[in-house]
């Protein structure tokens, strides 16, 4: 791998890394949303029979 090839690989890696980090953030957000929905359904159930 000549020097420039290493850089090419680095560039593609950076792009790939950004996408992966982005997906990770999205995943975190989804889990938070899911927990929130859980809380709300719990609240609603208590409200219904409360």
């Amino acid at each position, binding site marked *: 791998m*000549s*020097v*420039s*090839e290493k*850089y*090419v690989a*680095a*560039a*593609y890696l*950076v*792009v790939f890394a*950004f*996408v992966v980090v*982005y997906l990770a953030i*999205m995943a975190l*957000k*989804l889990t938070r*949303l899911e927990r*929130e*929905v859980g809380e*709300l359904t719990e*609240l*609603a159930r208590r*409200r219904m029979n409360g």
Partner: protein
Amino acid sequence: MLAALAAGLLCAAIALIFFYAPVDADQGLSQKIFYFHVPIAFTAYACFGWGAWKALLVLWKRKPGADQESYVAIHQGVIFGALTLITGSIWAKISWGVWWTWSERQLVLFLVLFLFYCAYFMLRFSVEPGPQRENLCAVYALFGVVLIPVSFLAIRLAENFIHPTVFTSRGPQMATSQFATFCVALAAMIALAGTLYRVELLGKRLDARLRELRELLT
């Protein structure tokens, strides 16, 4: 569906770039970055344009969801802008041995736009959510899209007194095969941006709806 398309196009693009496109005569393998760097730049422009279009809808048609869409689009634009700057500086490192060069117009323009749109977020987070924030962000987004051609012209004018352009690529004349690869790569990038845009927008709408639900219940 869009996500599947994006995934497919991305794989096709990578395959084409590495196996099909001929190695460039003078720049050798480094020319491969070109297939990623420039499409990312065009995608960033597309995101800013889309953000400005949504901003126009906010001001003109008072569409309710438009402000959020404009925000997410510009957020995508800044992400792709950052990628453009990074891949651009890597390309500069390979081709000319320097991590940053003022002579590459595209790069300098992106630096200006990057500063500008970071200020967009500063503005957005310093104003209370509400009609005024939507108007301010929309107006600023429109200023941004007007700034793109103006600062492109400025950078070109600036070149002959900052230092004459020593080396800049005139955008290599592409053989048909290279051009085909380029188009696939561009389509892949735009599809990727579209997918991320939709995902983030969905996330934000879900947030808003949950907040409403929480209000109703408490």
